């Protein structure tokens, strides 16, 4: 009904875009109504980010038209997009930590040789926007001192300050706690009610259902469906995205726990400046169980994984890994950890898990490069590595199955599957997994979680760190909550409820 009367803020007509041999967007057409929240969902590599990059002038379409407010426009660069009132909030914040909020806001629009004028104007404008949209942020706070949610608000303010009437958000909740996400949703609703058009790119169906008016589903570069949010549900959307039925619940048998493979006793880690990153951490993981560590990112999970995997020695306490004792005086390096049977799927796959410039085959042996069958007599065996990589790709359904392709050219989900394949292929006794499905699409999430459970059932001791509460709830047999470098609570999987865990994650309550 509204669809007929409301005019389109954005209309894309038959957009087509190829990168070399990859046809990223195929004749995609869509309309976004003015003053609405429209969600664009799709798996990684479905073309949603490419489509939005075209809208924002970062890429040029090979064919097709872009209409803003009904008029055809040329988007040659982000400058054009900004001139047409489009603002983009990226998944990774583009803020300068050591600057104040106000200084960040005027970056690129300083307004003259002296900053004072621009700063004063921005301060006045900020006060107005804060009142109008409920986006209150202290203009004189340093960005480094703000929480992640507040930093995101600064990003939103930045584009509003540039006069954006159309706001595109790319995976905005990836770094937020459940509570912060709720705040974001409130803000988006308020923006819509004030006439701003919002486009939300995400693969979290819960958010789509909570906040959008309309959902556009993309699959393999095409727009495959458009639904009013009130007329659809998670199952249908997931099915449309993946192209087949998706099961959300993992059915797994109760854990058959064996002996303790990984134990930490009063572990602590203090950095060079005396900051206590880990504080009196004690935990144990037994063979055949999955222990989940929940928490908002930045509460010591990264450091815990570093210590447990041997990348950083602890400064206090001790741990026992597959019967080997480790403490500050007896450190262990990651190579030794691998020898003990500890595999580690790191949190940040692009910075730790793989080398983007390396071939997939090179990535498939990272950390195992000096072992048989990849290396004999000090020389690496290229064909053996290629063959091994092909096998891994086959077993873990990594696409495309091209060991000679650069790691950077795989989608996030396929990179993650390759890393998991590498770490799980050697039947480790302990498997440390950080953010198993961060930035991974629904089809791959299902697959990865099932593989983790399989590994558990094969007798591996699995420790999963994730900021996705839902993931921890569905995977773990036992849940530990981390806050401020400490473990603040432990809950058995059956007794966990999301609200209570959320409060613990925010440091509000200890169990």
């Amino acid at each position, binding site marked *: 009904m509204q669809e007929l009367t409301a005019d389109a803020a954005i209309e894309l007509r038959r957009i087509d875009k190829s990168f070399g041999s990859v046809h990223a967007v195929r004749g995609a057409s869509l309309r976004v109504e003015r003053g609405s929240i429209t969600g664009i969902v799709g798996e990684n590599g479905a073309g949603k980010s490419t489509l939005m990059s075209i809208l924002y002038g970062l890429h040029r379409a090979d064919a097709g038209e872009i209409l803003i407010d009904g008029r055809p426009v040329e988007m040659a660069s982000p400058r054009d997009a900004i001139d047409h009132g489009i603002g983009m909030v990226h998944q990774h914040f583009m803020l300068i930590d050591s600057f104040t909020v106000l200084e960040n806001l005027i970056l690129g629009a300083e307004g003259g040789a002296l900053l004072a004028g621009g700063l004063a104007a921005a301060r006045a404008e900020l006060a107005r926007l804060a009142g109008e949209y409920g986006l209150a942020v202290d203009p004189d706070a340093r960005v480094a001192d703000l929480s992640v949610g507040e930093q995101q608000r600064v990003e939103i303010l930045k584009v509003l300050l540039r006069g954006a009437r159309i706001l595109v958000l790319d995976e905005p909740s990836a770094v937020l706690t459940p509570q912060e996400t709720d705040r974001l949703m409130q803000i988006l609703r308020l923006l819509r009610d004030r006439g701003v058009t919002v486009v939300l790119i995400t693969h979290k169906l819960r958010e789509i259902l909570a906040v959008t008016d309309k959902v556009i589903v993309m699959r393999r570069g095409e727009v495959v469906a458009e639904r009013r949010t009130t007329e659809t549900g998670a199952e249908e959307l997931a099915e449309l995205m993946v192209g087949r039925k998706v099961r959300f619940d993992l059915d797994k048998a109760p854990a058959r726990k064996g002996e303790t493979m990984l134990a930490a006793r009063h572990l602590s880690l203090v950095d060079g400046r005396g900051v206590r990153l880990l504080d009196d951490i004690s935990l144990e993981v037994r063979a055949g169980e999955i222990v989940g560590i929940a928490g908002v990112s930045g509460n010591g999970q990264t450091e815990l994984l570093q210590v447990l995997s041997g*990348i950083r020695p602890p400064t206090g306490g001790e741990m026992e890994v597959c019967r080997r004792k480790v403490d500050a005086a007896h450190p262990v390096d990651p190579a030794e950890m691998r020898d003990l049977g500890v595999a580690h799927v790191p949190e940040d796959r692009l910075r*730790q898990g793989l*080398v983007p410039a*390396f071939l997939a085959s090179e990535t498939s042996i*990272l*950390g195992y*490069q000096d072992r048989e069958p990849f290396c004999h007599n000090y020389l690496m065996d290229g064909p053996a590595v290629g063959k091994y990589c092909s096998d891994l790709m086959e077993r873990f359904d990594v696409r495309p199955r091209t060991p000679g392709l650069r790691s950077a050219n795989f989608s996030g989900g396929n990179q993650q599957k390759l890393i998991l394949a590498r770490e799980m292929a050697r039947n480790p006794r302990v498997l440390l997994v950080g953010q198993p499905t961060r930035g991974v699409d629904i089809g791959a999430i299902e697959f990865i979680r099932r593989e983790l459970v399989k590994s558990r059932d094969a007798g591996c001791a699995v420790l999963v760190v994730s900021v996705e509460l839902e993931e921890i709830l569905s995977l773990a047999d036992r849940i530990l909550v981390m806050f401020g470098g400490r473990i603040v609570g432990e809950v058995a999987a059956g007794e966990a409820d999301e609200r209570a865990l959320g409060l613990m994650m925010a440091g509000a309550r200890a169990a």
Partner: protein
Amino acid sequence: MSASRRPLPGWVEIGLLPLANIAMAFLLVGLIVAVIGVDPFHALKLLVLGAVGSSESIGYTLYYATNFIFTGLAVAVAFHAGLFNIGGEGQAYIGGLGCGLAVLALDGLLPGLLMVPLAILASAAFGAAWAAIPAWMQAWRGSHIVITTIMFNFVASALMVYLMVNVLIAPGSMTPQSRGFAASASVPSMQAALQWIGIAVAPSALNLSLLLALLACVGVWIFLWHTPWGYGLRTMGQNPEAALYAGTNLKRATMLAMCLSGALAGGVAVNELLGVHHRLVLDFAAGYGFTGIAVALMGRGHPLGIVLAALLFGALQQGGAELNFEIPKITREMVVVIQGLVILFSGALVHLPRPWLQALFARRG
């Protein structure tokens, strides 16, 4: 902005782009030469003939190229490990000290078959040792390798002047150079070597060190791309966190990369001292270390590319010398300007012709 992301066909990327860069550099050189009143086409002809016009000039071109291969490889190995070694100059120089000390101490005792390999090892070992100090300071103390290696060039230079003037100078000599090496302690010249197999070429400074340089290319290629240590170094260069995760000891890898780099730079001493001067002299490494950076960049860090870039720079060096000889108006400094422009266009401005090539090939494709 979006244009720069469009890929070019492989042969354009590897073949045509560098040629376009060089052509642009020569265009500018031509303009400058014309301004000082020399016919640019005549100058170009002299330059080319001077570099490859006779077997003697080819010999000299290859002799210079030998030095550039060594220093280019040295820079490239460090670069693959994420380390910018500016100290090839000093490492080559100190490599020469090692070479000289070994020969001066032992050339009366050992036959050539033992002496030469030992002198080569001494060059490499001293070059490696000179690189090891900045590497150690980087790995354990966090002193930036760019700063320390460049300062070590000056230290090397001062040290050599002191040693040559006060310690190693040949008794009774007025110039700061050592006594001549025994005939057994020399790398045979290419002319002599080719004569053994019945090929006659004009004498030049070219010697069998060229083969050592080519061998080093193969060695570097195998090391970087076909051994686990090379894999570890490349991982560290691309992504230190991933290397740490993979169990590479970053401190040890830094030492390894820099020592290897310094040892390769030491190859210059082999070419210069064992191949040409047959005594320890001052400043034999001058300029090669720095040009090696351009050679490595232009060769994209790959041994094959480094050989090609070294040939180009060898030809410029030799052709430039001839040019200066034939046309005194084109001074030594002018020749350096030519080299500089080639470096500028194929280094800093490497992507300048890209949009034009893209337009050209986009229309066709």
